[in-house]
């Protein structure tokens, strides 16, 4: 998958003994597994494993819940199929007209309550982790969504990046080459340091937009009248495509942007070069990644892109 960073140490190293745990803990235990094992062995279910610290937490909750849902779903499907196949009409005999079985009904009320409360517990823990903002972010970026594009202002740095869907200043596609139809372009780049915390302050200049980076497992509305603040700690350098998810009018489908996570030193170099060049709206960061390839960590970024 194009958006994934190359190195994923966390995804390797399968754990021994997990099957033992699973056997003793049952379906509820499976829910608890992600926290115990750090999710090393959890399947991705087509989702992103989360390229940020926060996004990875969400991924663990997601994957654990999918497993629980599969367990519950399988049980119910089997019950349905059994009833449907086993009790097909075979004769005109009158079945027993039973209607209530209180103990059974109580059981299947109580068990779902327990499952749901467990999920709620994990939810609260995860959402607090995901929404937590650090007191000392390394960089602060103000993101302004507008019809139809994005503006990224680096607070106190006099650097800003602006990209409009209808006139992309530097149309580059996923493969790093110029893109022909607008729909294959990446849009403006939001550059941030990998391994450090970036504070995003999200606002909208007109209607509601959705700031969504799939690989980060995170989305938040850019809502007029509301200022949203959240943190990303990108784990590995890379280019992550992103786009607006909340329908915002005619060009909503083309409202792309992308996140470029650079190693901190390169990030600062990029910031300095942007400050130096007088025009605020800018050179394409993806290009800068591409230009400094030899031997640098950015080479792996390029390979991923």
């Amino acid at each position, binding site marked *: 998958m194009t958006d994934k960073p190359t190195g994923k140490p966390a995804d390797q190293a399968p754990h021994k003994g997990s099957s033992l745990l699973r056997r003793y803990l049952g379906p509820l235990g499976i829910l608890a597994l992600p926290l115990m094992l750090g999710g090393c062995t959890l399947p991705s279910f087509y989702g992103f494993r989360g390229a940020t610290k926060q996004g990875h937490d969400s991924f663990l*909750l997601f994957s654990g819940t999918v497993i629980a849902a599969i367990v519950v779903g399988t049980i119910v499907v089997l019950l349905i199929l059994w009833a449907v196949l086993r009790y097909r009409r075979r004769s005109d005999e009158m079945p*027993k*007209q*039973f209607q209530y079985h209180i103990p059974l009904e109580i059981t299947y009320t109580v068990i779902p309550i327990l499952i*749901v409360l467990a999920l709620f517990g994990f*939810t609260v823990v995860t959402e607090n982790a995901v929404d937590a903002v650090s007191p000392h972010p390394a960089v602060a970026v103000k993101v302004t969504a507008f019809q139809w594009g994005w503006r990224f202002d680096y607070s106190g740095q006099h650097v800003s990046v602006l990209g409009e869907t209808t006139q992309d200043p530097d149309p580059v596609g996923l493969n790093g080459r110029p893109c022909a*139809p607008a729909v294959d372009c990446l849009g403006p780049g939001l550059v941030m340091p990998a391994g450090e915390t970036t504070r995003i302050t999200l606002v909208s200049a007109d209607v509601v937009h959705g700031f969504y980076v799939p690989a980060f497992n995170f989305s938040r509305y850019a809502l007029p009248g509301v200022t949203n603040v959240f943190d990303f700690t990108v784990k590995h350098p890379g280019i992550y495509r992103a786009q*607006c998810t909340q329908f915002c009018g005619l060009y909503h489908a083309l409202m792309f942007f992308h996140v470029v996570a650079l190693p901190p030193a390169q990030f600062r170099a990029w910031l300095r070069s942007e400050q130096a060049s007088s025009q605020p709206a800018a050179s394409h960061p993806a290009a800068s990644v591409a230009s400094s390839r030899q031997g640098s960590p950015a080479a792996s970024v390029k390979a991923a892109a």
Partner: protein
Amino acid sequence: MTLLAEHPAVLHGHPEHHEGPTGVLKWLTSTDHKVIGLSYMITSLVIFFIAGGMAILLRVQLASPHSSLLSLQQYNELFTMHGSLMLYLFAGPFAFGGLANYIIPLQVGAPDMAFPRLNALSYWLYLTGSITMLMGFFTAGGAAAFAWVAYAPLSSAIHSPGAGADLWIVSLLLTGFSAVFTGVNLVTTIFYLRAPGMTMFRLPIFTWNMLVTAILILIAFPVLTAAMVFLFADRHFGTHIFSVKGGGVPVLYQHLFWFFGHPEVYILALPYFGMVTDIIPVFSRKPLFGYKGMVFATMSIAALSTGVWAHHMFTTGVVLLPFFSLMSLLIAVPTGIKFFNWIGTMWRGQIRFDTPMLFCVGFLLAFLMGGLTGVMLASPPIDFLTHDTYFVVAHFHQVLFGTAVFAGFAGFYFWFPKMFGRKLNEPLGKIHFWLMFIGFWVTYLPMYVLGLKGMPRRVATYPSGLGWHLLNQVASLGSYLIAISFLFFLWNIWTSWRHPVAAGANPWDAHTLEWFTSSPPPHHNYLKLPPVRSERPTWDYFHPDARTISHNGRRNGHVKVGAEVGSTGGSDQ
């Protein structure tokens, strides 16, 4: 006319007694709930086919990246209209204006709805509301293109100028009033016009669910109407309720809308749960398992559903996440009860798979997956990674299609003989089911994957090279299969119209009161009534030896049945 129950047979001794107008005039002037119910049903099915046609256009467009079949503007108008027509004008009205209107008075043993003329007015407001919304396509700026939710400020006069948007708003005013009138009518009918012995806890579950739905309508629709009035005032009368510039609060719109919108989802679902709950016992030849649990489950779903509105606003960053997440998760509990009760009803039954029952099983499977993914979405961190992606599109179609289409057509196939006195063709019905069932899964399963791969919803086009192409292609193929399945449905209707096969009063050996009267029922419904001693009066009457027993073997009910029917005894037909 003041209706006396004393000698209803004398009042309506001969069918010609009621010499109301015929032809077009009959449809314009009738206050009979059966005629109005049919008008509703036919209109909403037409809407369903229009909106379904739009869905196919959308799917053709999305079958490949960079598609240029539709322009961005056209796509935006079409998906907005598809969603709006399906939700406001098909799924709801088909259930509470159509089937419920026809069936509820029959199920409770009433001669008509409590307010027949108000009922007729509901229909006219619904019809004109539908016309109003569709008129948008014929205005200069085109139809509304701000999604079925019309979020402010995208729906403001600046961002969505043009008459199409205004027509969309006033259309909701008309249909909103129509829904409220129907709600009042249903509640009053159920509270005041029941047959002797038909206590609240003997009401068929469909009736129970419609009662609860009607209450939800009364809670939710006035809020929608208020939101629409505010929106219109912002657009034309210079107010600034939802615009930041004048000191308004855009997010207030979302609160108002979803305070309506989430209960609305259950207004669309509960009637269909009710249909399924009435149908499964009939084809299993058993009473509903856990009747009382079912009633309380319905009530708790409805109650909780009014406290979860902001789960659609998790990503706004300004709502109380734990409150809304907990309330939403808890809905899974009564929903689970329903599932186990449905399964318990089939358990050790003698299940016959006629078309309505097949559709019920289709519903169970569809709604199971839709429900499980719904539980996932109730958890804010998971919502953060799926919100406004195709994951959500897959989720709500599994629920809405599962209810409004699978369960809705189960109800349609089930009650068709009652409404028209004719049978539908079984093989054609089964082909319809299987094609639709396969098409359904082929359409929506890939959408979950698309969402997880990051494809946002409401996009008219998408980039190549992201692995989205093939999945979209498969989804489109599935949707064509669904479209084809409906040709068999139409063929079936055609067949029964041209070559009628008489159905008789009770073709399914069913349980509830409506199957006691003739098909179609006479004016004012009943010439005579059986005694009501359980929630299965018709069954009790025909199977006096097969009464309900509870798990400890005791018989429920205490009066002998079968001896005392009306004054004449025996069933007609």
